[in-house]
């Protein structure tokens, strides 16, 4: 802290610095990296780090063992996790009390603590390396891979792994035009959702009349359940920054903005630190690495509006106005921030740039599919066994993503649908599971790549109810400027609420289709036009569920509370009184040896009885017409 560093004035000085950093590091020295990103921190990673430091101090190993706090490694539900180098042994669900054993057995004794290893639920085999775990085996972690090796608050860690070499290459061995050409050749497409060719966007901005030009990073990731950009910004902020500086050089921008949502405090902190350190080393600011190119960057904290992720709204917000989209018939690349040419790319897009510059467009195009090269980070959530952040080559099928990496559907349930692209993506049914994931294929079936949210739903999910959830989200998050989006979503939500409440009418389906069409055809920005996706795909692929709600007043997944009833099956009830004791409205009557009965009039359908019954005697029935109650039925005792 407080040390002054020497500014790097040439590529050779960067190489020298890297050599010096590496020389100081002993590859055989044990390093314990602990993920302290949001997920693992919530599970107690902070306490594990504390325990590690304390134990190391107690044993006077400070000089012999290093503890590194790193970013997200993806397998969040098994956190806190740590890796012990040099053997790269991964431990999961580590508690502070496991620390002394890890130090004595693994760090000193070079042995493995078997009980902390990942056990493959299928084969029962224990994984001594990350790559042995099916969740990781099928991934290609070009962007996320370094998260486990880097302390995001230390630029030296990034430089040691070859960081800023791509910037040096671009600044000293390539003209701005050559950089753009390389990105164009790589066919990198915008990872924020639109899939627009990045190189073309850069070129448009470069050639657009008007100065100054701006480059911007979009880290306003607002999709429920998505944390791709967050993990990159928290875990490897310099990779984003390096990409941005290269882009600025190619475009001819000397000023940039990084828009991070306020809800990501760690991302804000880490990128701010990264900027400061890069400036200290002369990798950012005036005369970068002695190249003559200058570039400065500011962090702008978003005020919590989903719609601000839309490019024109984001720029309006940076200008200090309300984040509302503007009609974009003239692209923001031509007239963007303060009406100047502005190039906005998503976090993940920028992070791909250094890799392409360093390894070349041909290398990049060898990964993924022809029209969507490279990898894509997805946040795989929902009813799969392994949830977390995954990075895979484009073109992997949904089936492989869900079954090989995700480990299949939880509790042996049946797959129903997968929703890609966040709240304005579409539902994809089972018949399309072999679809290769890329920008164009997902659009063909009515969904989209979006920023990479993947939500898996099983048979217990009511499609009508989930559609309603998304439309509710979108109508809250709409800016309310244009009529199709504001009034259209309001009316769509009204209809969906009605259908879920069992008050749907036959003609509602046609009205929903008309509303979706209007949204798609006439909305001002992509929030409105894509809001039609969940409505249309659910109507196209799961129409029978809507019809069941409307015609039979039945919710096939037994979710919509107005359309279900809880019923105690007399042949299963053991008269244990647990349900009646837990019922918050005293709707269950029953006594010893007498089968319990739910008073349907009193029942508020909270589902507590269903959860607490140890005999599985409470069932949900839809339509909500249980057999007439018969009080005083004797219990049929189960044989022990």
């Amino acid at each position, binding site marked *: 802290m407080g040390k002054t560093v020497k500014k790097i004035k040439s590529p050779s000085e960067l190489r020298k610095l890297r050599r010096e950093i590496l020389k100081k590091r002993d590859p055989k020295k044990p390093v314990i990296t602990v993920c302290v990103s949001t997920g693992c921190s919530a599970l107690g990673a902070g306490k594990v780090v504390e325990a590690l430091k304390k134990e190391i101090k107690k044993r006077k190993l400070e000089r012999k063992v290093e503890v590194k706090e790193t970013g997200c490694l993806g397998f969040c539900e098994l956190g806190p996790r740590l890796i012990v180098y040099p053997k790269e042994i991964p431990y999961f669900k580590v508690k502070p009390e496991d620390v002394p054993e890890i130090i004595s057995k693994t760090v000193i004794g070079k042995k493995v603590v078997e009980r902390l290893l990942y056990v493959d639920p299928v084969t029962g085999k224990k994984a001594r390396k990350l790559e042995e775990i099916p969740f990781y085996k099928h991934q290609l972690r070009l962007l996320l891979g370094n998260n486990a090796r880097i302390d995001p608050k230390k630029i030296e860690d990034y430089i040691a792994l070859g960081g800023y070499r791509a910037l040096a290459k671009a600044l000293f061995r390539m003209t701005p035009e050559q950089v753009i050409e390389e990105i164009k050749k790589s066919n990198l497409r915008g990872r924020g959702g639109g899939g627009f060719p990045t190189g073309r966007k850069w070129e448009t901005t470069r050639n657009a009349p008007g100065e100054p030009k701006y480059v911007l990073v979009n880290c306003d990731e607002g999709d429920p359940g998505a944390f791709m950009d967050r993990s990159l910004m928290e875990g490897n902020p310099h990779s984003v920054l390096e990409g941005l500086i290269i882009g600025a050089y190619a475009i001819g921008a000397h000023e940039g903005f990084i828009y991070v949502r306020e809800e990501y405090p760690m991302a804000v902190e880490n990128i701010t630190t990264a900027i400061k350190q890069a400036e200290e080393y002369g990798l950012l600011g005036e005369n970068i690495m002695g190249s003559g190119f200058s570039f400065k960057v500011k962090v702008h904290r978003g005020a919590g509006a989903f719609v601000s992720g839309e490019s024109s709204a984001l720029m309006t917000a940076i200008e200090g106005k309300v984040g509302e989209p503007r*009609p974009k*018939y003239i692209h923001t690349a031509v007239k963007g921030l303060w009406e100047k040419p502005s190039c906005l790319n998503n976090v993940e897009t920028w992070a791909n740039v250094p890799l392409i510059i360093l390894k070349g467009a041909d290398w990049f195009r060898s990964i993924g599919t022809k029209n969507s090269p490279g990898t894509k980070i997805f946040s795989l959530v929902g009813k799969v066994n392994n949830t977390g952040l995954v990075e895979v080559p484009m073109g992997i099928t949904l089936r492989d993503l869900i079954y090989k990496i995700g480990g299949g559907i939880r509790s042996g349930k049946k797959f129903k649908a997968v929703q890609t692209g966040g709240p304005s993506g579409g539902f994809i049914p089972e018949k399309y599971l072999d679809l290769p994931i890329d920008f164009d294929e997902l659009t063909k079936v009515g969904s989209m790549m979006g920023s990479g949210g993947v939500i898996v739903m099983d048979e217990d999910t009511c499609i009508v109810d989930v559609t309603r959830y998304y439309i509710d989200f979108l109508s809250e998050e709409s800016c*309310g400027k244009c*009529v*199709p989006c504001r009034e259209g*979503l309001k009316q769509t*939500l009204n209809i969906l609420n009605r259908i879920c409440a069992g008050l749907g009418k036959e003609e509602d389906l046609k009205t929903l289709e008309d509303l979706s069409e*209007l949204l798609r055809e*006439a909305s001002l920005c992509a929030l409105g036009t894509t809001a039609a996706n969940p409505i249309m795909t659910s109507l196209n692929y799961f129409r029978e569920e809507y019809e069941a709600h409307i015609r039979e007043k039945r919710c096939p997944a037994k979710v919509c509370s107005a359309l279900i009833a809880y019923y105690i099956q007399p042949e299963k009830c053991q008269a244990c009184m647990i349900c009646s004791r837990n019922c918050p409205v005293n709707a269950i009557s029953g006594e010893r040896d007498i089968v319990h009965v739910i008073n349907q009039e009193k029942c508020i359908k909270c589902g507590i009885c269903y959860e607490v019954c140890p005999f599985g005697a409470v069932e949900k029935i839809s339509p909500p017409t249980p057999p007439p109650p018969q009080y005083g039925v004797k219990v049929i005792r189960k044989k022990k």
Partner: protein
Amino acid sequence: MSREVTLKINGKEVKATEGMTILQAAKNNGIEIPTLCYNEQLKPYGACRICTVEITKGRRKRLVVACVYPVEEGLEVETENERVRKVRKMILELLLPLSNKGPIKDLAEKYGVTKSRFEAEPTDCILCGLCVRYCAEVKKANAICFVGRGTKKQIAFVPEIAPNICPTCRECYSLCPASRVIDLGESIYSLSIPISEKIKKS
């Protein structure tokens, strides 16, 4: 300085100056495109979408709003075809429960929208923002503003500014497509109360 461009509107060749919008070019040539949130004195806003038209560029057809889209050489514009009419009808059907007055009523009649499948609180305000934008852009007073977002968006007077300006200005009254601001302005004592609250009270 500005170049002249030729485009086609409804099959008819039309001359326009670069930088003009489709709406202006159409107007200059006596072709009517309906508007609700448009006013010549103000920056185009593109919110009501009633001026939606279909354009053809090369082989690609798409819908755009005429009040914002700039004219281009060789552009083909359809202002009243089936696709366009369908959008306008649907927009009017959504607006009708909010307000059935003035230009909304006239347009609904013109496009044959006699009843709406939708229900809404009849606030009379369609959030076209003419009052807000006029006050900000022309009067530079910012006495009236939007509050909230999404389906909960409303218009309210700014309590610190409005009482000093609005009672004597009243210039926005005539802009309101539903004359809603008049009702509001008359009860200027309760300026800080959002419109829908006021409706509930009255």
